[in-house]
């Protein structure tokens, strides 16, 4: 089931540099929230904090609070590995496990976390491949290497893999930046289908994409949340001058 996320005074430091400067963001459940902003504004630093991907990275420090539903994700009792099954991530470059087949890519995590019985694996594989629109394309070669697929299909395999552990949140960091327009369109259509069951947060450089796919948009600049609004409003009538300047290309 989709869940809400909320950050409170979230700060991310790379050494002495503060990349995210005290962001309060409320991400609604069962909706697509996009984060836009110029390169280096802290978008990726922010999204990576949401499933504790900065943990253990030398020189990186995260402060502030992040709630998944009502639970603080840094709670001692919460294993970051378990957290990442609740809060999945899809990256810019499709990264299926290179040595594994399509089927193994999908069953690896659920098997490891004991989320699937042996006899149910096939139906899980079919379910997530159907949800990502891949079933008809790959059903006859489930045991072929995932890496042999086209990059658009590989990216959908990565989404299917993330869905296989039934996450509440799906984080996507520029998920279509490396794809052609057709593959991009497929992923965007998929987001629309998925958001009923999974809360989606997407970082994108492409403002048209943010406008097309998201319900709410956050504009981040220099580590600060400048404006956070319904997408429709932000792109037709932004409240802040800085947002206006950025989305109309009159920046800096």
């Amino acid at each position, binding site marked *: 089931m989709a869940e809400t996320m909320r950050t409170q005074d979230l700060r991310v430091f790379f050494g002495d540099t503060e990349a995210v400067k005290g962001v309060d963001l409320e991400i609604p459940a069962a909706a697509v929230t996009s984060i836009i902003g110029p390169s280096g504004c802290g978008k990726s630093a922010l999204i990576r904090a949401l499933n504790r991907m900065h943990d253990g990275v030398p020189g990186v420090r995260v402060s502030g609070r992040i709630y998944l539903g009502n639970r603080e994700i840094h709670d001692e009792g919460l294993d970051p590995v378990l957290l990442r099954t609740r809060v999945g991530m899809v990256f810019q470059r499709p990264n299926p496990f290179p040595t594994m087949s399509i089927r193994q890519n999908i069953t690896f995590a659920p098997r490891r976390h004991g989320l699937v019985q042996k006899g149910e694996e096939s139906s899980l594989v079919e379910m997530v491949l159907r949800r990502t629109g891949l079933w008809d394309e790959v059903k006859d070669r489930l045991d072929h290497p995932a890496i042999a697929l086209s990059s658009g299909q590989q990216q959908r395999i990565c989404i299917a893999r993330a869905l296989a552990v039934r996450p509440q949140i799906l984080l996507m960091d520029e998920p279509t930046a490396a794809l052609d327009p057709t593959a991009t369109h497929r992923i965007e259509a998929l987001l629309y289908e998925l958001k009923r069951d999974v809360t989606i947060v997407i970082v994108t450089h492409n403002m048209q994409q943010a406008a097309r796919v998201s319900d709410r948009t956050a504009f981040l600049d220099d580590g600060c949340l400048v404006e956070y609004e319904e997408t429709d409003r932000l792109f*037709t009538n932004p409240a802040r001058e800085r947002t*206006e300047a950025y*989305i109309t290309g009159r920046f800096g």
Partner: protein
Amino acid sequence: MNLPGGSRHFQEEFSALRHQLLEMGAMAEELLRFAVEALMEGNVEKADSVILADRELDAMEVEVDEAGIHLLALHQPFARDLRVITMILRIANDLERVGDHAVNIAETVHHLGSAPSLLTRVPQLEEMARISREMLTQALDSFVRGDSVVAREVCRRDDRVDSLHESGFRSLLKHMADDPQLVGRAMSLILVGRNLERVADLATNVAEDVVYMVEGRSIKHGAGRREP
């Protein structure tokens, strides 16, 4: 990254589009002025020149449409750029219709002939013509200056035209009742009144579009019109 407002290419086409709309505005104002003058003077040649020139206004509207759609499709603008372009498309349509009403007025000159004596007995029409023209000019000025205060003022003036229309209509009915020989000419003037009232409505539409363009909120159908 696609940055419409930042590219010189976009800026050039964008300002060309604004310029095209202003040319349309000037043309629509001229047609209206000529139509009203032709009516007052009973000048058939002047009236015919309006009918001829309206085709040019129609062609200009098609050009604005094409240029506007081109900008939307190729540059996918946002925020104020998006509002300005979409409002330009609407305003162009309104201006084209102002031209049609000018033509309707010009056509009545033929029916009225060169004896517009009845017209002098219905001063409401001349007053309506003056206010409608001023409203159109003011609405176009508010577009150029991006001034929503002036645009709101235009909207408020529409009530005055409506009441003049009402009173002129009654006056013409009375003339018809008093002298059945006047029925044909009075009917023509009722149509003139109707056309002038529509021009004021269209000027109001333009002004409402300017408010949306500047402030990003709609004041159509009376919503929020009285504010600031």
